[in-house]
């Protein structure tokens, strides 16, 4: 990609004062010169292969034994740091919009580029979203919180520091409730939330061919919420379900699209293993680069097995504090970088931003505006007498839950409505690649359909035919029955006449 095109997108309304005429400079090695050495985020191929040999034996034995067997006498401790990218109209500290997938350096301005003389101004929507999520996570809110600078040098960090929250995050001490899927044995879990804080995202490095890298600052300054869990998870499944519930929550709240592939929801997982009964934690290893819940599940279970085997083989000293990457292709974790002591970020209070002060009115207004959240929905559905499987399916997606709720409110029996939605309607959606918002069937007509079958007007078989008609073409149950003369004849005398 020609780096000359990089800064063409600078908007020039009130930024006319911008003292740098970057747009017409030729910047071959200008914006982008670091050679791919330490800066690289993906390990070299040889590296991976080298690791392969070393770990071959371990990984083979891992794949042969089920996890429970390996884990005998040991337990894993898992904590998760999640970054949620907020779907605010503009960035956290400037008025740039952000669109995923835009051409590099087109959603930028002097503020998010960190040009001299620019200052951050907090987007109030970020606070609004943070309070929403904090309330949904049952957190204690800090009535006064502040921003801090987290300082380190990296080309994707234009100011040389990230505006974040350090010692006084906006929310602390919450929890999240979830149900494990039935196919994995089910069960209710409550995982602690240590803290939620607001911060800005960094840009992205593009490692292209040649001896340099390029910097895309589109993502720089996009608001994030970092959610840190307590080390309460014990397996890959629990961790993946925690992340899935967080995704559900941010989607229900409308604060983020929660899309893992786009990086809107990113999980860094800390895993350690210790012999059961031991009080102190084992050495923790951080895993990155998992872009689906199933990858999280597999990556964590792999890492647990790896560490447990080292423990059981008396080689626990080989578990070192490091960051490992999940390699989807190899289905294993590999070393990305070993920690050389703790990084010193030289945090200090951000002098460019005033404290964030919340009022009770502000919080109560937001609390009142919260939708029914997944956990409340699930418990309500359970009270309706639905099976856990039905409950989880319906509450998983907010639109599906909404459709179900409306159908039920229109008089349909909960179990019957659930069956139709989870059965024929779900199958139709899957085949047609549609979401439930996009179909022509309305909840009211589904309720009518269920009622017509129930009162014997039509048979279940005819009902299915009508359903597909409604799904693809719309209309009302009544009209279709009339048009096609589909009324079920239940009078034996009338049937005899045929």
């Amino acid at each position: 990609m020609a780096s000359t095109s990089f800064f063409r997108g600078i908007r020039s309304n009130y930024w006319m004062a911008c003292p740098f005429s970057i747009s017409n400079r030729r910047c071959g090695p200008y914006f982008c010169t670091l050679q791919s050495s330490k800066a690289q985020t993906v390990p070299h191929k040889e590296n991976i292969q080298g690791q392969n040999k070393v770990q071959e034996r371990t990984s083979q034995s891992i794949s042969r034994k089920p996890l429970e067997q390996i884990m005998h006498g040991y337990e894993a401790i898992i904590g998760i740091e999640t970054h949620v990218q907020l779907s605010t109209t503009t960035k956290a500290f400037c008025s740039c919009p952000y669109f995923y997938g835009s051409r590099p350096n087109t959603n930028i301005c002097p503020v998010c580029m960190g040009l001299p003389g620019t200052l951050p101004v907090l987007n109030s929507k970020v606070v609004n979203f943070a309070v929403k999520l904090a309330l949904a996570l049952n957190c204690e809110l800090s009535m006064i919180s502040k921003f801090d600078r987290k300082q380190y040098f990296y080309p994707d960090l234009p100011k040389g520091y990230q505006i974040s929250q350090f010692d006084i995050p906006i929310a602390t001490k919450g929890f999240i409730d979830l149900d494990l899927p039935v196919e994995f044995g089910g069960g209710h879990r409550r995982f602690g939330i240590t803290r939620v804080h607001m911060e800005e995202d960094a840009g992205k490095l593009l490692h292209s061919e040649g001896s340099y890298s390029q910097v895309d600052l589109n993502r720089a300054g996009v608001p994030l919420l970092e959610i840190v869990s307590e080390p309460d998870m014990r397996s890959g499944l629990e961790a993946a379900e925690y992340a899935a519930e967080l995704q559900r929550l941010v989607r229900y709240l409308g604060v983020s699209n929660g899309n893992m592939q786009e990086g809107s929801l990113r999980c860094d997982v800390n895993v350690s293993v210790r012999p059961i009964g031991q009080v102190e934690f084992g050495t923790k290893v951080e895993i990155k680069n998992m872009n689906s819940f199933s990858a999280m599940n597999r990556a964590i279970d792999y890492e647990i097995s790896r560490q447990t085997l080292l423990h059981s083989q008396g080689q626990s000293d080989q578990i070192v504090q490091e960051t490992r990457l999940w390699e989807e292709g190899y289905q294993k974790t590999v070393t990305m970088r070993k920690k050389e002591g703790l990084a010193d970020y030289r945090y200090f209070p951000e002098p460019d931003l005033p404290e964030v002060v919340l009022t009770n009115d502000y919080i109560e207004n937001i609390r009142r505006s919260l939708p029914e959240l997944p956990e409340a929905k699930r418990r309500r559905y359970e009270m309706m007498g639905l099976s856990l499987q039905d409950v989880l399916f319906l509450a998983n997606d907010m639109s599906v839950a909404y459709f179900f709720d409306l159908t039920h409110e229109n008089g349909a029996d909960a179990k019957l409505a659930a069956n139709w939605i989870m059965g024929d309607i779900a199958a139709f959606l899957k085949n047609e690649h549609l979401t439930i918002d996009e179909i022509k069937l309305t909840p009211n007509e589904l309720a009518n359909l269920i009622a017509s079958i129930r009162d014997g007007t039509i048979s279940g078989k005819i009902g299915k035919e009508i359903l597909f008609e409604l799904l693809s073409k719309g209309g009302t149950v009544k009209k279709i029955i009339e048009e096609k003369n589909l009324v079920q004849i239940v009078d034996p005398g009338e049937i005899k006449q045929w």
Partner: protein
Amino acid sequence: MKPTYGRVSRFGLMAYASSLDVIGCFGSSVYDVAILLQVISGHDRLDATSSKREVPDFANKLASIDNLDSKPLKGLRVGLIQETIGERVDAGVIQVVQSAASHLEQLGCVLSEISLPTFSLGLPAYYILASSEASSNLSRYDGIRYGKQVEAGELGALYGNSRGNGFGAEVKMRILMGTYALSAGYYDAYYKNAQQVRTLIKKCFKDAMKDNDILISPAAPSAAYKIGEKTDDPLAMYAGDIMTVNVNLAGLPALVVPCGYVDGGPSGLPVGLQMIAAPFREEELLKVGHIFEQTRRCFRFAPIS
């Protein structure tokens, strides 16, 4: 004139120490300064630390000398800060400032000496906070997006060499000091302590302002030293800031007007009188400064409007 912190937007100003940076104005008369301050003051939505307070019409309120009575500053309570006319302050400077204080008395001011017990703590606190913030604010000059980039095969060297070549010696020293003060294990001893000192200084000023409308002091402990005279002794140079750093830490407005001369050079060296007011009371300072300037005709280059 150094206005109150937040009176003038910092947007567009290359940041040195964000919590201390204030855009001020120089002028050849207090009146000119008032006109300039009027124009640059006020809230800016691009600076979250800029104040939303209304900006008074500074210049229009300054009275012409012809309309002044014999005691134009009658009843104005002026506190001369004891700590600024004691040890380590040039005797000539003390004398000129005391004579300026007497002049204020003649104009009707009620003069008293007051003490700011935290005064001597200001200098170390200021240099810790200023260099800490500077070390952070100057991080963006990394040669990545603009400026002179030194090509290197490795990221650390790219940063190190670009910044090493770009910054001058004094800047490097301050970055090093600030980085040190913010480092793990030193933060509490330096940065945090300095912040606490800052809070004490603010409180001290607030207390002093209860009984005084303005406080006065010399603007510097000595008249100007020769170019290059103290280059090898940065601490001696930093000590020259002792009179003004406290005001800066407290975020208060201050006005410095020439008030006399001490021996030195071919025609003597000027001495400045610093006047300090409560937050956002620039108006008061301009009024006093304007009257002082017009009535004290002993010095040679302040034009009389």
